[in-house]
């Protein structure tokens, strides 16, 4: 129960926050140049 109801939701939360953070970073990064593309 402890694992299923406490650890799993925390891992899900961390994954959701990590995904949101990556999205923010991608949005803030400068657009790739023609050469990088």
């Amino acid at each position, binding site marked *: 129960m402890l694992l299923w109801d406490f650890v799993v939701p925390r891992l899900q939360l961390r994954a*959701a926050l990590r995904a949101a953070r990556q999205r923010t970073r991608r949005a803030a990064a400068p657009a790739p140049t023609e050469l990088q593309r």
Partner: protein
Amino acid sequence: MSPLIRWFHQLGSPPTFDRFAARWAPWAHVLGLLAMAVGAYGALFQVPADYQQGDSFRILYIHVPAAWMSMAIFALMAVYAAIALVWRIKLCEILAMACAPTGAAFTVVTLATGSIWGKPMWGTWWDWDPRLTTELILLFLYLGVMGLYAAIDDRRNAARAAGLLAIVGVALLPVIRWSVVWWNSLHQGQTIRLFGQSSMDASMLPPLVWMIVGTKLWFFGSLLARARADNLRREAGKDWVLRQVAAPAGAPR
């Protein structure tokens, strides 16, 4: 509008719910664990042994609260699903779907503890008795709701389909509740009543009350934590989520 109703409406907004869940989920988990620890101590060390079953009856302090939770959570899930279907409140979809894993876990605990008790008392781990069978069907329904929610890519359609299954599944709850009355069942009848005289001795009840309170709080914490993660996942890309992940830890959001 009364402040309570206004607060309730505000809670339907994803950022407000996120703040609420972030604040209260850890408290609910900690208080739930404490209440269950007090209950477990009372069940193991304070309550006298049963005159017929000896110490093996103590498993009821886990079995009974878990069984009640398995049914109560299903009913709550159906209520959230119905609200989500009628009023299209996104947060109610999230809450309904967050109920299922904890409800399924409580159902597994109910079946497992019943089985562990059944072996020495009935002489068998399992019997296709009406109460046991309907509880097993409840587990399958929980798994069905979880599976359906995971199987459809569009989150809103998935929640709607799984919510419908939850609403239909509610028909099973009265069958579980009265299975021991309607059919000749190996499972014992009702011994603990919320209202009226229980056939269980009063000295055995306080740890049960602690366990019931503890399991409710534990579920509340799990519900908030799961719903918060799903809410953040669904809202990814919205301004409030971006502000939240951009803010340094401890800064006001």
